[in-house]
């Protein structure tokens, strides 16, 4: 099987600070890759570099698109990159206020990506929006409400619907469960797990919560000071951590 995303020796510096130091990994279709590490370990920067939100100094990020063409994301022209981000990619932000348009209704939030790719039929957009609302377990009656009237968990689920509506193949998530209480987290994780399976999504999931990666991620990378210190199958890494930092991380968790 061909990898969906290949990252080779990606380096990103902020002045003298190495935010990401020669990071390499491959992501296959349907796979969930977890990235854990403490604050400042470079995991969010890595995600932003891959998504093209920030430019990086060295390395190659190669993505294999729907038609099986390899695309070098670093040299991809801006219009094509933006198009790709709206059709085949998705980015879930920790704070739903950054990922949603708070001043337009839930329906319009879901419809935006469809409008971006040229859908011009109001009825179709409406139907699609309702479909995705049920998919993320938001009652249909809330379609014309503003996201600001939603609870934190609902906002996060709406963010998922907004992205998934164009059937992306790869979704990057930056702390999607951060700031939610435990029961809401559990529900969101459950939903994400089933969506990943039914839609055959590939996911890169950045978090500092070991419980989240244990539940969702197939593979795991542990980062410290901009470097990957350990990687492997999630269960393997968490049950038999080799690197001292990983051991510390696993031991520091209340319920591993």
């Amino acid at each position, binding site marked *: 099987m061909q990898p969906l995303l290949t990252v080779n020796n990606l380096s990103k510096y902020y002045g003298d600070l190495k935010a990401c130091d020669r990071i390499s990994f491959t992501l296959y279709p349907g796979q969930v890759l977890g990235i854990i590490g403490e604050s400042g370990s470079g995991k969010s920067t890595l995600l932003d570099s891959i998504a093209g939100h920030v430019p990086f100094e060295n390395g190659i990020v190669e993505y294999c698109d729907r038609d099986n063409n390899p695309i070098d994301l670093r040299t991809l022209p*801006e*219009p094509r990159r*933006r198009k790709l981000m709206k059709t085949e990619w998705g980015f879930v932000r920790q704070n739903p206020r950054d990922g949603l*348009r708070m001043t*337009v*209704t839930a*329906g*319009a939030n879901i*419809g*935006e*990506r469809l*409008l*971006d*790719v040229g859908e*011009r*039929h*109001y*009825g179709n*957009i409406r139907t699609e929006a309702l479909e995705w609302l049920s998919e993320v377990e938001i009652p249909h009656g809330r379609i*014309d409400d503003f996201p600001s009237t939603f609870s934190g968990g609902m906002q996060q689920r709406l963010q998922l619907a907004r992205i998934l509506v164009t059937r992306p193949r790869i979704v990057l998530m930056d702390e999607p469960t951060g700031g939610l209480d435990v029961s809401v987290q559990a529900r969101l994780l459950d939903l994400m797990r089933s969506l990943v399976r039914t839609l055959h999504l590939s996911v890169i999931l950045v978090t500092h919560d070991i419980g989240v990666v244990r539940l969702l991620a197939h593979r795991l990378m542990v980062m410290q000071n901009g470097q990957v210190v350990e990687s492997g199958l999630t269960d393997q890494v968490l049950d038999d951590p080799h690197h001292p930092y990983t051991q510390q991380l696993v031991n520091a968790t209340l319920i591993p």
Partner: protein
Amino acid sequence: MTSSSPGSPGSPAPPPIPEPGFNFAYLDEQTKRAIRRAILKGVAIPGHQIPFSSREMPMSYGWGTGGIQVTASVIGQDDTLKVIDQGADDTTNAVNIRRFFKKVCGVATTEKTEEATLIQTRHRIPEKPLKAGQVFVYQVPMPEPLYFIEPSRTEANKMHALEEYGPMYVKLYEDITKFGRISLAYDYPVMVNGRHLMNPSPIPRFDNPKMDMNPALQLFGAGREKRIYAIPPYTQVKSLDFEDHPFSVENWEHPCEFCGATDSYLDEVVIDDQGGRMWICSDTDYCEQRQREQSGSAQKLG
């Protein structure tokens, strides 16, 4: 656009004498040239906003300084100027701008749409179709259609460059969701030549279809925002809509109470404090010509 040097005497009807001490059309020749360059760029890329160094004019921003600068740089001695404000030739803004150009150019002015070679407008397109060879200048308060969606000019420029107009449709979606129809009544955004999203200045949506494939050259000047853009003759101009909510224009249950027109844009005028009101054509020239024709034919009949 004809030569802007003062005209030679000897034409059959001597034109009004321009005020001494001013350059022809108030602006200096270099400025006019710079503005004409911006206009040419605008014509070359229909609907695309071209920045220009908007000058101080002898009136405040918001009174049509953009339109006046465009008019001043394209007007020639042999032009006939018409100025309308809300469709009327006799409102303050229209009268003042017409007087201004009479004073600094000494050009002929008219109130008849078909006689004018150059028309400056605020808020309307005349009911009488424009002809090839006419130049139609709009005063624009806000040239950027994406402003209320994307306040950053840099980002908006990028959206124009990449033709990312999805967010504009989000606004229309919201309208239909809230009101069951697109409720924009004026400054209704249009796609020009299938490429650029454009604000048509605050004309009512009623006038939007008149811009499409219009034989006249349409120029837009925004003085405060320092932007010029253009629609060349016979250019496709399409109002944004949804497939299942097509663009439509306003209509009235009443005809004009002065001339009986049923095909023109009507103003609602309150006539007393008892709730009395009447509907009359906003295009005064159109209304008067119709009234004159009717009284003429009535006399013939009598």
